[in-house]
């Protein structure tokens, strides 16, 4: 294109050529070099997990945030845990309620060490519980009624409650024990929340590692319950887009993808390189009403709205049939559920009922979390369903922490909130007491207040008899269903997908959905 070169230009050209050669050399060198191991573990002993949503903090206080809980479940230990739906001891070897259910005597396991080498003693348990009580947010709502801990010696202590609460012991499966000396030394002005946001004070099978780009946890050699086959490193990469998560999985940059959109998972069903696992735990998609203020305070309107949503269509089209239509306010996998009939879509009946309530052309509002694509689609579907009977629905995006804050005042609770409900641990009681007892301000999502329900739940909290408790819970659920506190849509089996040959299997967990990283075992030994 350009003319032949004069002398001056040749120098420039040579210079250019040299530069080009140098670049090529660097590139070739770079590609030829093996990846330098900045991590202790090699790639085939590491499992990379792709999950969506912000990992805001690693403070065990916020085990109520899903992403936080997934990671800290492997970095910390709890006193008790659940094997499927049965409670078993973890750090605690023995535990028993007193006769009046107002205190629990616990025997702690011996020889447990924190990641920094210190021993885990009863003092740490007391510190953890007291810290939660002082801060009052996050999972502190689970230890309602906690008064104090009496430490007898390093391995024996008694938890004192101010009122009988048979939910307390199961709740301990979500209370992660922190290294009191470490947190105390770094507590700053906010009880260590800023420090624990990115630091490790645990005793679990993994230690918190590098957090510059992804959150990495590395195997802790001094763990009290070692198991063979654990990955040496687990990397948690935040990838919000399900499609991107899927693509990274297929490309081999991610080994396990949590929470894929059903459509994406369905597309991989026939791919032999990956295995799709529909995780059936306790997730249920619900639209929860504000039963106290606003148009949804009228039970007739609530009952009518329950007949508007296209359950079958939503389950099939949005969730790819990964789930089952709901029948009751509690997820199907829990025990102690009554046998209630599922609600069907019946637009005519809904219209008639709304007319009766004088709300034929009401304007309603629904909040939802736009960061979850499927929920956005469900919100849009419901909006479209309502338009068919002449009701206008305004969709309001909201972030989860703001939703939690709105629960503090019955008037600020959203008229309707679309969310995927789940049980913090597999006990029917926790969802009922936390969700529908009138004094559970801050977790009572419907602003619900029914003295009959309160009475039944109080009785259950004070009853040591499991069968009786179960029966009481069933009664409560029947009342809630009659009162239409929510539109129970469907139980969802969120697909998790893993690459064949990375982990041996993916076990669904009711405590840390979809699976507990501590349960991962490498496929090749």
């Amino acid at each position: 294109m350009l003319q032949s070169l004069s002398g001056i230009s040749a120098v420039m050209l040579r210079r250019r050529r040299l530069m080009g050669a140098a670049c090529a050399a660097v590139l070739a060198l770079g590609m030829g070099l093996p990846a330098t191991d900045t991590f202790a573990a090699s790639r085939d002993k590491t499992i990379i997990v792709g999950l969506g949503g912000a990992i805001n903090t690693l403070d065990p206080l916020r085990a109520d945030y899903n992403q936080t809980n997934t990671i800290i479940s492997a970095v910390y230990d709890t006193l008790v845990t659940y094997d499927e739906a049965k409670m078993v001891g973890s750090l605690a070897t023995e535990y028993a309620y007193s006769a009046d259910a107002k205190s629990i005597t616990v025997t702690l396991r011996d020889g447990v060490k924190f990641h920094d080498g210190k021993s885990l003693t009863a003092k740490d348990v007391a510190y953890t519980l007291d810290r939660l009580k002082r801060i009052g947010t996050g999972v502190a709502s689970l230890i309602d009624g906690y008064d104090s801990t009496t430490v007898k010696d390093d391995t024996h202590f008694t938890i004192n409650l101010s009122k009988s609460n048979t939910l307390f012991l199961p709740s301990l499966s979500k209370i992660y024990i922190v290294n009191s000396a470490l947190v105390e030394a770094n507590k700053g002005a906010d009880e260590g929340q800023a420090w624990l946001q990115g630091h490790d004070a645990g005793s679990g099978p993994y230690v918190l590692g590098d957090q510059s780009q992804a959150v990495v946890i590395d195997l802790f050699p001094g763990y009290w319950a070692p198991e063979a086959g654990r990955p040496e490193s687990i990397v948690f990469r935040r990838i919000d887009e399900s499609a991107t998560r899927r693509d990274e999985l297929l490309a081999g940059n991610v080994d396990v993808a949590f929470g894929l959109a059903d459509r994406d998972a369905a597309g991989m069903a026939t791919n032999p390189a990956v295995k799709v696992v529909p995780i059936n735990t306790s997730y249920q998609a619900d639209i929860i009403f504000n039963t106290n203020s606003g148009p949804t305070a009228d039970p007739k309107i609530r009952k009518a709205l329950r007949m508007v949503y296209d359950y079958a269509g939503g389950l099939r089209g949005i969730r790819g049939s990964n789930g089952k239509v709901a029948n009751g306010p509690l997820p199907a996998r829990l025990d102690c559920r009554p046998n209630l009939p599922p609600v069907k879509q019946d637009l005519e009946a809904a219209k008639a009922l709304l007319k009766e309530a004088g709300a034929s052309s009401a304007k309603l509002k629904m909040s939802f979390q736009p960061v979850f694509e499927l929920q956005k689609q469900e919100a849009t579907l419901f909006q479209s369903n309502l338009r068919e009977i002449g009701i206008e629905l305004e969709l309001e995006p909201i972030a989860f922490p703001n939703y939690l804050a709105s629960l503090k005042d019955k008037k600020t609770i959203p008229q309707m909130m679309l969310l995927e409900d789940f049980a913090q641990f597999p006990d029917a009681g926790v969802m009922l007491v936390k969700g529908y007892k009138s004094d559970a301000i801050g977790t009572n999502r419907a602003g619900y207040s029914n003295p009959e329900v309160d009475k039944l739940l109080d009785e259950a909290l004070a009853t040591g008899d499991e069968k009786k408790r179960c029966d009481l819970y069933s009664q409560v659920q029947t009342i809630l269903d009659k009162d239409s506190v929510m539109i129970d849509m469907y139980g969802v089996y969120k697909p998790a997908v893993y690459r064949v040959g990375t982990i041996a299997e993916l076990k669904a967990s009711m405590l840390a959905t979809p699976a507990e990283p501590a349960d991962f075992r490498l496929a090749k030994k």
Partner: protein
Amino acid sequence: MPAFRAYAWFLARRLGLALLTLWGLATLVFLMIKLLPGDEAQMAAGADASAAQIEAVRQRLGLDAPVIVQYVRFLGRLLHGDLGTSNVTLQPVLADLEKVLPSTLELVFFAMFFNLLIAIPIGVIAAYRRGGVFDGASRIGAVVLGGMPAFWLALVLQYVLGSLWRVVPISGQNSFGNAAPVMSGAPTLDALLAGNAASFVDGMYHVLLPALVLAALFSTQIFRTLRAALLGVLRSDFIIAVRAKGATARHMLVRHALPNSLNPVLTLAGTQAGAMIGSAVLVETVFARKGIGAYMFNGVAQKDTFAVLGSVMFIGTAVCLVNLIVDILQLFVDPRIRSAQFGGRTQ
């Protein structure tokens, strides 16, 4: 030297202007904070703070004092680098931003690099071969590329080049095992600092597509401006003289025509640097990269209001600084600017 006095005076004026702009920016942010609906102390304390915690924050921020006093205190806090505290990370906003700023700068640096690397040669050839096939094609290309939404381009290219053809990485900033120890926060820089060639190349691969996408829109502007300027220069007398002396086309273009046309291009590039920092948010969210844009975006999604407003202040300051540096550089590069700045009225 009289020239030195002129320089010094210009610099002083320019710095004064920058400070004034920063002050105006701070005032704007303060206004935005005051205009927020709801209780400011509650918003600063966090979504689920207790009443006692909210009170403590109210005291700390001095929200009971008259607005003027609050304004002065606000400016004072800014001068100390206190941009507020994030409710989500519980860290000071400035600390959060410092952690992610290098990553955005890395993206913007490479975007600007590709921007100029692609636009300048094409502009030169198009101008030289005015009216030819190349010229026509590149002009059409510039028009089309300039109208495409960057995020759309990002999505499509991410799929085609990343997932489908596997030519470039899909997301993130490093592949597993290739990350160098964090020192600055920008993966390629960290790799250089650690002397890790593999990590450097890996980081480059990951920033390649995002930088190209970010550069796309801006490169069309550079192309147009350069071409227009070059066309003007190529008609001038001294170019004819250079050619008459027997210089080759290449020599004439690169040694004479180009340097004389670069002035408007550099001005434009300087403005673009600021705009790139702003547009980085689109690219960062699609490619899952850390950065100021992603941080701000997260802040909006999680209603971390003070983190967002602190970021606005921070980015505004950064852009202001970039503009200042560009103006000063221009002063040294082009003598004509000096006279325009010192004597002219219209900018």
